[in-house]
């Protein structure tokens, strides 16, 4: 009963925040509500027992996406939007009239799914002793479906390459005042510590490369915003190397496996744990570097 009530409150809050984020009065309000939405969603993941996701969502969804959204808002300025006039409202009602039957259709055909189950979890648990890690989610990410993870690192790289085409991403940040500097200077080492802990724990409990990388990136971003770090520039080659490190190592392991006869992305017996750990460390660094470059990366501006 109490659980059902909690679910109901959580879901109501989630949907209200989602609606507010879409149709908030000003863009600023919308973004604030969206960041709050991310935090509530992290709570939902925790409630549903997906702790890995709760960690990832809190760091990525609420933290970094929030920073990105506010950066976009700062670039855009608070120009009047001309949104939500009568025509817009009419369009919204029309779309809602179309989508409501779709919702009914979806719910009625999805209802039977809640009772079924899948053979995969059992297989995943049965194969766990041979996977080199103890946490099933990490085993799926870095062993059973490592190919997805490899390609996903490439997706992150491509986003970065795409963002690089767009000219300067420089943000004119205000001069940080003393307390911000002091707080960020204390926060950053703490984030590094927690990131390292999450990475290490990932092999046996919720956590892993993505959560750790996102936390590290959050640390880098906050340091940069407090002007405690020099500008991050793509033209600095060690930074590029850091971005590529995870993907390159992953690819090298895959190719070496194929070359030596183990098979594409197969780890030799006994080597699974060290290889996975090495890939995770490299991926964490790459993810942290890529995400921080995406948020606060700068291009060298031609001298005026």
């Amino acid at each position, binding site marked *: 009963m109490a659980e059902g009530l909690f679910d109901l409150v959580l879901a109501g809050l989630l949907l209200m925040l989602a609606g507010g984020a879409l149709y908030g009065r000003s863009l600023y309000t919308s973004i604030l509500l969206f960041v709050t939405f991310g935090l509530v969603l992290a709570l939902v993941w925790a409630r549903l027992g997906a702790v890995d996701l709760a960690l990832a969502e809190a760091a990525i969804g609420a933290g970094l996406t929030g920073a990105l959204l506010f950066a976009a808002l700062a670039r855009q300025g608070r120009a009047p939007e001309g949104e939500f006039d009568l025509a817009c409202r009419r369009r919204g009602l029309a779309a809602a009239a179309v989508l409501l039957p779709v919702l009914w*259709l*979806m719910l*009625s*055909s*999805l209802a*039977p*799914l809640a009772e*079924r*189950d*899948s*053979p*995969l979890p059992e*297989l*995943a648990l049965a*194969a766990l002793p041979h996977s080199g890690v103890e946490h099933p989610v990490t085993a799926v990410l870095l*062993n*059973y*479906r*490592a*190919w*997805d993870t490899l*390609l*996903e690192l*490439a*997706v992150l*790289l*491509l*986003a970065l*390459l*795409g963002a*690089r*085409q*767009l000219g300067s991403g420089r943000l004119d940040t205000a001069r940080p005042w003393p307390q911000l500097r002091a707080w960020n200077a204390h926060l950053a080492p703490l984030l590094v510590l927690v990131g390292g802990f999450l990475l290490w724990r990932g092999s046996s409990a919720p956590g892993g490369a993505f959560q750790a990388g996102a936390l590290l990136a959050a640390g880098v971003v906050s340091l940069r915003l407090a002007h405690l770090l020099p500008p991050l520039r793509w033209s600095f*080659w060690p930074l*590029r*190397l850091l*971005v*590529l490190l995870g*993907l*390159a190592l992953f*690819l090298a392991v*895959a*190719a070496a496996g*194929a070359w030596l006869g*183990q*098979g*594409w*992305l*197969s*780890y030799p017996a006994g080597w699974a744990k060290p290889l996975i750990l090495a890939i995770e460390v490299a991926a964490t660094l790459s993810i942290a570097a890529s995400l921080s470059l995406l948020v606060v990366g700068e291009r060298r501006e031609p001298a005026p």
Partner: protein
Amino acid sequence: MNAALLSLFAPLAGGLLLVLWRPARAGLALGVALVSLLAAAAALHQVADGTRQWLEVGGWAPPLAIRLQLTPLSALLLLFTAGLHLLVAVYAARRPHAIGGADFWPLACLLHAALAALWLSADLFNLYVTLELLGLAAVALVALAGEKAQRPALDYLLLSLAGSLAYLLGVAILYGRYGVLDLFLLGEQATADAPTRLALLLMTLGLMLKGALWPLHLWLPAAHSSAPAAVSALLSALVVKGPLYILWLLWTRLAPTELAVQAGPLLAGAGALALLAGGWAALRTPLLKSLVAYSTVAQLGYALLALGLAMHWQEPRLEAALWLFVVAHGLAKVSMFLAAGELQHTLGGKRVVTLKGASQTLPVTMFTFVTAGVSLIGLPPSGGFLAKWLLLQPLLERPQHWGWALAVVLGTLMSAAYVFRVVAHGFDRARPQPPQVRPDRFGQWLTLLPALLVFGLALIGERMLPWLEGVSR
């Protein structure tokens, strides 16, 4: 299988190297494309007798892990991708104006890798990741064109993401219903119940949006025509074929037969309308590159028509026609976009009317445009003719199918009309447009190369058919 993996590994590793290492990028990219091409040819040789090879990634058995498959068709598509990448790269190395920025090289390599991963994958979620990879690579390439391309790039990105999310919801539903993600295992279990229908509907809509299939094509002309010439060529020839491939896999390998039979006419109808709507828009647009982009919409209509009818009648010959269309259109469209870029760059105008007298000032480029156009129209002896012939044969066999044949004929007439619209301006020598920069003779010949290959396709088409048909079930 290792040859196919090399064909995938080369562009991926090459792309990374190109990001890190700045000098001599063109040479490295050409080398990568060449290695990939040779590896793809070796892979095709391995499966040329129509066998299918599997690779279990990580050595885990199928339901748990991802499987890669190598069929004659996927090997052929690998070869096609590597070949087109090589052709475009050769041209781009010669004509730097066509690429927009030095980041073209790593991005094109990563695009190539994304497509190679897509052709090989047999896992629904892995296909989602490759789709995203493809989409982001394409958007980054469009953004190379600078400020004027940013609006189309953003629209493209948002719609492409919406399409992916519809696809992903479909994947989630299928997993919820059957508990596996492997395409062929799903195909064995699939029944025509409500969740399966909903999932297939969502996935089809998402893929149609990503593949710019009518009526969800509205983002394509702006995105393709605002990109640099070499990028437009890659986008039109390759990128839109990725979602089409997944759509084909879904409806011929996964979907229960009765559903495929029901859904076939809908897709075929959309294809027929795409032919007419795309052709009409290409006739009306004042801009040259946008004309070529609308012609992509129309030509994708043939592919969709072939797919829909192949599903409806369960006819493998039409599947062969579909893939022949894809290959022939890819080659012809590369030539056409490169030629359009060359014309636009040399004559300094974006509009079709600025082509006045181009047959005099840029004879080879104009010849390229006509040659590629002949294949798009489907005149013999081009690859386009072969594909259209394969498509028409089953349509003409029975009188009740003549309606579809009529749509194909109308589409052909329209494509003839828009190609001749360009040609007519080109041969109007009364007041020729003076070239803004000195025409580059060698570059012009390079644009002709893919168009000549389309005609070569007609020679080897007979031998290719068993590879295209051999993959049916």
